């Protein structure tokens, strides 16, 4: 299936992933439509988001069949963004608290 020059996979695989993405999108729309709230809502949104992202990257972008060197080079650097998110969460909380103290 995987040659040195490129990748060819059966079209049925793409159709299955396509259908699965439709189902997952419908489910994540359902989270809003049926008014889920709180931790359940955020948890479901994140789970469906990560599943969809994983399917697109692994199958549609063929990353699952690439060599580990390329996979690591692509997937590890974005983890730095988690550090940024952590820093900015602390910063945003601090800003929020000072605004509550001085601007209300």
């Amino acid at each position, binding site marked *: 299936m995987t040659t040195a020059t490129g990748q060819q996979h059966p079209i049925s695989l793409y159709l299955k992933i396509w259908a699965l993405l439709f189902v997952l999108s419908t489910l994540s729309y359902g989270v809003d439509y049926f008014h889920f709230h709180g931790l359940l809502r955020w948890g479901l949104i994140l789970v469906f988001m990560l599943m969809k992202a994983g399917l697109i990257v692994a199958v549609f*972008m063929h990353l699952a069949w690439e060599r580990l060197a390329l996979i690591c080079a692509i997937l590890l650097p*974005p983890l730095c963004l988690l550090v940024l998110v952590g820093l900015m969460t602390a910063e945003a909380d601090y800003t929020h608290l000072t605004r509550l103290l001085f601007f209300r």
Partner: protein
Amino acid sequence: MSAVPVPVPHDIAVSPTIGWRGLVTDWSSDREAFHVAWGKAMMWIFLLSDTFIFGSFLTGYMTVRSSTTVAWPNPSQVFALHIGGADVPLLLIAIMTFVLISSSGTMAMAVNCAYGRDRVRAAVLMFVTAAFGVTFVSMQAFEWTKLILEGVRPWGNPWGAAQFGSTFFMITGFHGLHVTAGVIYLSVVAVRLLRGRYEHRANYQIVEIAGLYWHFVDLVWVFIFALFYLW
């Protein structure tokens, strides 16, 4: 006292060239880290950099949303469509999501046809993908028009936190720009494919590289849909 020539060990590679060419030779030294075509490796590295751009946008959105003391407008109501006497929440956004996913599906099949060396079918599927992209951008233009008419501006809106407008226009605008660029890119590659520009190569790998960009645009929308519209 004549200098005795010191034999250079064989394992130290000395570049024969100097200047910029020498610099490139030294850094590459005939080694390849990624055993894929260079175009594909470069596309992946570009997409990695784009990941950081969108990641920073979304992190900035998270920061302003969680630091504001004013209530955030409810996206479920803001993006509702009035159909048949009832408000259907997020309907347009849901349709846009399905349109973009469908375009990813046709793109994946175009790549499949390209590797089967069926260039006509591959080009047709790429045009279908581009048409889905145009549909997506048109719906986004409709959505922007609707919100602007309702009074949403980058500096304020009728429903709550002023930061809603600035993050909305920035994030969806930058994504829409990517979709537009992707439509042009796919059309150019499809036309060249039909005209036989890639016949001298052993394969149509350019289709897979263009596909990587298109799937990435879909991937970014998955995150925007979850974090901006649903959150």
